[in-house]
């Protein structure tokens, strides 16, 4: 894919909000505060970012973050790193099934946690080999690579992702 630079600027202000300027036609170069939603939050993290204004309306769809100049990209990445958090599972202590529910007891990047999914919500395996578990409340937990888990944990999860 060709990545031609877009003529826009992004910058973080002291209040930790991201601002966008340079959309001549629509906003006459005014700075506007933006938020970011990803079109493919699981599989393509740095492609197709939707920039949204305060009313949650899209002001710009960015196909690829490489289309930003270096400084804008840096600010964008820093902004994303604050709001773009995904819990990583580093170890699995147990997986138990009961009626309608599957209980995982896991150690995550944030600490130890019990998570529940529905029985028919199986962990999803992505193309890049990572495994996604979405719990009942909608939070996503990711296992970046099964190979790097302890062998006991690998055995436990193996039943669900072979």
């Amino acid at each position, binding site marked *: 894919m060709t990545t031609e630079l877009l003529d826009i600027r992004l910058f973080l202000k002291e209040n930790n909000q991201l601002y966008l300027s340079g959309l001549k036609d629509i906003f006459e170069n005014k700075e506007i505060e933006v938020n970011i939603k990803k079109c493919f939050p699981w599989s393509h993290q740095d492609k197709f970012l939707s920039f949204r204004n305060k009313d949650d309306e899209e002001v710009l769809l960015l196909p690829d973050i490489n289309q930003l100049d270096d400084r804008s990209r840096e600010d964008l990445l820093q902004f994303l790193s604050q709001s773009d958090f995904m819990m990583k599972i580093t170890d699995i202590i147990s997986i138990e099934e009961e009626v309608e529910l599957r209980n995982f007891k896991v150690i995550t990047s944030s600490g130890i946690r*019990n998570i529940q999914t529905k029985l028919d919500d199986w962990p999803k395996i992505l193309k890049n080999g990572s495994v996604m578990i979405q719990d009942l409340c909608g*939070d996503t937990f990711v296992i970046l690579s099964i190979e790097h888990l302890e062998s006991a944990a690998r055995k436990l999860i193996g039943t669900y992702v072979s």
Partner: protein
Amino acid sequence: MNLELERKNTISKYYEQESSLPKKIKENLLNIEIELYGLIDLNESMEFQSSWLVLGENTLYLFKKNGEEHVLDTKLLITSISRIKEHQSLSSSKYEFLTADDMPPLLSVHFTGRQKIVLGHIKYLIETKMKSVKYNKPKDWNPDVEYQKAVLKHLNEAQSTLSDKQGKTFLRLVGYLKPYKKDVFWGTVGAICSTLSALLPAYLTGRLLDTVIKPFQEGGLQKTLAMNAAWRILAAIFLVFILKEVFSYMRLSKMSLMGEDVAMDLRTELFSHLQKLGLDFFGRKQTGSIISRVSSDTDRIWDFVAFGIVEVGIALVTLISLSAVLITLDWKLGLAMSLPVPILLLSIYYHGERMQKLFIRAWRKWSDLTNVLSDTIPGIQVVKAFNQEEKEIDRFNQSNDDVTGEFKSVHYAWTKFWPLLMMGIQVIVMTVWILAIPRLISEEGTTDYLSLGTFVSFLLYVTMFSQPIEVIGQMARMLNRALSSAYRIFEILDTSPSLKNGRTILKKGELKGDIEFKNVSFSYDGVRKVVCGINFRVLPGEMIGLVGSSGGGKSTITKLIARFFDVSTGEIIIDGKNLRELEVGSFRKQVGMVLQDPYLFHGTLVDNIRYGLPDVSLKKVIEAAKIANAHEFIMSFELGYETIVGERGHTLSGGERQRISIARAILHDPKILILDEATSAVDTETERKIQDALDKLIEGRTVFAVAHRLSTLRKANRIFVVDKGEIKETGTHNDLLKKKDGLYNKLHRMQQEMSENFV
């Protein structure tokens, strides 16, 4: 069990988080009325923690954990907040409390999805306070209860009976046998007697050898006497066989019939309970899963009651009495035979546990396969339209291969284990032989002597050993399956209807149709508000048009009026009474709905039109059909009103279905009429006809009509423009047109342009 205690237990069991605000914090805020609180379970570096956000009348507090104690960290006056900004990431959310847009936030908090509903409530409460809208809390508001319910919402939706233990479920299932005590008694008697009588023939055979045949062969018994004795014993054996079959007939007939009764009771209870549950329940469970509970789960219970319980009982009785008999016959051989049995049972059990893992894998692949099926069969039109048959075949074959692979490994594990188990039994039998042979060949009268008859009885008993072992080995799994079926059934029975029925029963014609919304908000999932703070009053006989962008909340407003869902906050007042006080059934009888995609039941047209009013005269049915402009097309079918429409009415066109459903509404003569895009699926000519039908229909009723084509609403007294869950504009067609930059004006302009461009 006390509900609050139950909620608390569930929260600590599944979430390992506090089930209410820590006492210390409450003591800290003694003279403040706590409106609501929530747990902030992530800190700035995204590690789990437990801080608490507490909302008072006009202040917001954040308590952070310092060692064992929670200490006040931040105190914010609501008036200092200008906006609460929300960030959502894949595994957490963040609220920023801002005082001005270009200043750093006063406070930011991170939390996971579990806390989101309760914190969303807090956000909403703060926002209403900021707008200084008067918000009346319900009288029985209790922050503890609100916190617990919000935190448990997702969990409870996935499974309603979290706190039940297996033992409790089993007892509850047994409770369903109560009405059939007599059958249970006779069935059990049959089972025990048939088991015990099965033990006799082997014993008698041994006796025959020891007391008749051997003495005769050794010359100690006369031939005729021996013959007589032998016939007698044989007759006894035969009698025992007959008795055994009679008893087992008794057991089988009683138990299987009773099993059917129990299954039927469960089905009846389930179905009538299902009818009482709200739409939210059906929205979150898959139809297939509900259907399978009424059908296959109850069937499994039948299996369990009819055979399972008894087989296991029989196996236990057989094993114990066999061991007892063997030990009394000859204690040495008996012990050699019975002592290894527990080891066999254990190995079967552990093998079962291992198999469980394989089953989970197979089941996962199996659900992939059924997903392909349930995707493509109902969607076959799309598959064909996009010429994807080959691709779907590939997809199916892929899943099919996977499933077969998994099932093969299941069978592989079984086939490896089974011969091993049998080998174990053979080894025991060989041991018995090895112990027996020297004793058989020793002199009669010595202490070790074993008579031939005893040994033959023994051999016959040994053949009876393997079957009960097998049954008991499978018991754990069978019990598990039956219990999980029972659990799934009880789960539905324990789901309480989300709507509390009111007491006031409306008689026919008693409803006037005065509808008022007071500050009504609503959310389907507890997080995203679909209707936000709506106020209006509609007088009896008024026709209201609802227009606005797709997804704006129009249909939701109409569903709230029909009380398919209860409002989250605010009130709906019907004829001066809160909608919640009215008895739902008697109210809905006087509300008619014509939906965009009307549902017809499998059956004749006439039955579909008079659904809910089976006694109405045929004349009236035809009149209603005529008003709905349906009569003509109905008569074009060979069977007229007795034409059978297929599942969901798929043999009719969209417009035809709509007209049937309009006829249905006309027949019901409702006081409040809801038309949700009733004319969206038809051509202009038919729309005109339906429009005429509706014009006749709306007289003397309060009407809410949702429409995209504004021309449909020419008769409306007022029009509400709904956008993003709010009513943005109201007024008559002409009023609204006067607002040059209004939403309605814009809509109108666009529709005009479209029809102009067309010419």
